[in-house]
């Protein structure tokens, strides 16, 4: 069990009545967030499963479609997310030290980086739209041998990156809430649980991308 120098007393509003002490409350929140992240692992896992099946079934089509993945945007986006994870962890650290200005600054940086990611994603999606690679009635594919298979693979591409992007958007919303709360002095060295929890969430979304990037953008080129 962790020791802390400053703990919440029963009078502080942040200690909810059904908890005995702040350590129990923080541990519960942390465990709760981890359980939620496990559900997210399984949620994305279903798509990773479908992707793995079709990549194995349609290796040639997969090699063909991989040429249309924008590795540069993908790589830059990976870098952007890694930076955002760094700024996020620094934000959490600032909260732990009670450094309000640094906290707000790092949260804003993280949000900006997240928006950069989403903007680049938009550019990428737009590129796909121009190429008629969005599955649906308008789908076209240069190599007629792989028309159907490519459409399935592109569906999985959009489903996986799209679901990831939705999680990023939710994360951006959560960050905005944190920024407002931090600016209003809601956090202190003794209580900054939402910052830590959303930090965990943000890192998780980064990890999903760490796997998406090689699987969708990098392998398959040389097959």
């Amino acid at each position, binding site marked *: 069990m962790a020791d802390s120098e400053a703990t919440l007393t029963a009078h502080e509003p942040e200690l909810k009545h*059904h908890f005995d002490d702040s350590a129990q409350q923080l541990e*519960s929140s942390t*465990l*709760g967030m981890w*359980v*939620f992240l496990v559900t997210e692992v399984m949620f994305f896992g279903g798509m990773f499963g479908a992707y793995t099946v079709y990549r194995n*079934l349609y290796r040639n089509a997969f090699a063909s479609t991989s040429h249309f993945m924008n590795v540069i945007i993908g790589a830059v986006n990976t870098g952007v997310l890694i930076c955002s994870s760094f700024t996020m962890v620094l934000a959490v650290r600032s909260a732990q030290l009670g450094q309000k200005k640094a906290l707000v600054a790092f949260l804003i940086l993280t949000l900006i980086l997240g928006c950069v990611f989403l903007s680049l994603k938009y550019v990428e999606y737009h590129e796909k739209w121009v190429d008629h690679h969005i599955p649906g009635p308008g789908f076209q594919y240069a190599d007629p041998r792989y028309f*159907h298979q490519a*459409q399935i693979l592109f*569906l999985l591409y959009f489903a996986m990156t799209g679901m990831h992007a939705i999680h990023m958007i939710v994360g951006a919303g959560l960050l905005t809430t944190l920024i407002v709360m931090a600016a209003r002095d809601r956090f202190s060295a003794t209580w900054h649980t939402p910052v830590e929890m959303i930090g965990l969430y943000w890192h998780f979304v980064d990890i999903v991308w760490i796997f998406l990037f090689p699987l969708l953008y990098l392998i398959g080129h040389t097959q």
Partner: protein
Amino acid sequence: MSPTLPFASTEARTNYLNADYGWKSWLFTTDHKRIALLYLFSITVFFFVGGLFAVGMRLNLLTPQGLFSHDTYNKLFTMHGIIMVFFFLVPSIPATLGNFLVPMMIGARDLAFPRINLLSWYIYIVGGIFALTAVVQGGVDTGWTFYAPFSSTYSNTHVILAALGVFVSGFSSILTGLNFIVTIHKMRAPGMTWSRLPLFVWGHYATSLIQVLGTPVIAITLVLLGLERLLHAGIFDPTLGGDPVLFQHLFWFYSHPAVYIMILPGMAVISEIVACFSRKAIFGYSFVAFSSIAIAVLGFLVWGHHLFVAGQSMYASMAFSFISFLVAVPSAIKVFNWTATMYKGSVSFETPMLYAFGFIGLFTIGGLTGLFLATMAIDVHVTDTYFVIAHFHYVMVGGMVMAYLGGIHFWFPKITGRMYPEGWAKFAALVVFVGFNLTFFPQFILGYQGMPRRYAHYAPEFQVLNVMSTAGASVLAVGYLLPMIYLTWAWRKGPRAPQNPWNAKGLEWSSHPRPRLPTTLNINRW
């Protein structure tokens, strides 16, 4: 023996029911007991909606040529399945009895995340509204299993609306499971070690693990199904290069463990009831506790037994078949332990115990027929026949619903502070038992004789057994209506219950009947 407090004037005493009045105090409550009641009422509504569809089906099956068109019948069995599985069976015991009792049983004041608990109910209601909207708009005809490519490409019904209902209700299930896991890990009173936890709590813990690990997969599966329905990219459509078996894999990855989500809480209730009415501690506590975990884990490794004839590889099928045999072992362990608990116990036959007896017998039959189905050589012949239907109704209705009713009766005095009429309750339990067997036993025979499931019309030689089954269904319906009536009556007008009418040993009985808001217990037992 637990100390009993006088029950004279509980009327004036503040409890969770009268602490606050008005719809706002109910719809914005964060108290686990009130949320349990919110769920209780909603779940009961869905039970009867699902039951109405069953009535329609059984009426149709009175004659070989049926009453309804094929399309209508398809919609009836689909909606029956969707409502019963996702909106009744999955939430039933955890959201009602679990919500009410788990904090009390571990000595906590509430669940770890009370507001998420309320959110969970709201999400459930939203999901239910989507599903009911699908019904009102004309229904869905894909079967509750939503198999592609029919659901993704060919069905002309409101698949996405129904799938959305299921998707949303899944999040309710996930949040409930998350809440229970954190609560049981972090909110136990000092001295309440894992090895002292009531088996009710162990069962709910195992259930929560499944909810958290399995439900997200059906969520993403339904998303992919929805995308396929909109875009026709071909992910599950063989004419477009897709594999419909992939849908089945992803669907059953959740839906098989889901049946353990449905039954484990029922087993948890039975453990409590059997121990109480045998006046004996449960035999083999550790075995029963760990068997819940074993079922939760093994339950994730067997889903391929739903795909034996779907085109799954022989090797995978053999592996899934073997592990399906293994998963029967922990269930059998429970049945043996309940029986051993009763042996040389002082057994009495109050209503909860009657339901427990019904559960043990009927669940055993259902479980054993599950083993037949796990045997590939048999499954080939009886798959997609009424044998399968009889199997899962034996475990779900003969098992789970009886456990639910038993639990409702057992904890009724705790929840309402009043006693139900024992005579009527015993009678209803008997009616349920007789009605159930009359409904579903003939279906084993029908399936064995080859009557396929999900058929609106059938060959004439199957009529006698079908008529028997429908007759049984009407008896069963009476059996379910009776508690609706007398329990509602007893809530308002029943005699006041003493604090512990059963002299049960659980911690939840040491609070006043109708516990306070927030929950407080006299922790004087240890």
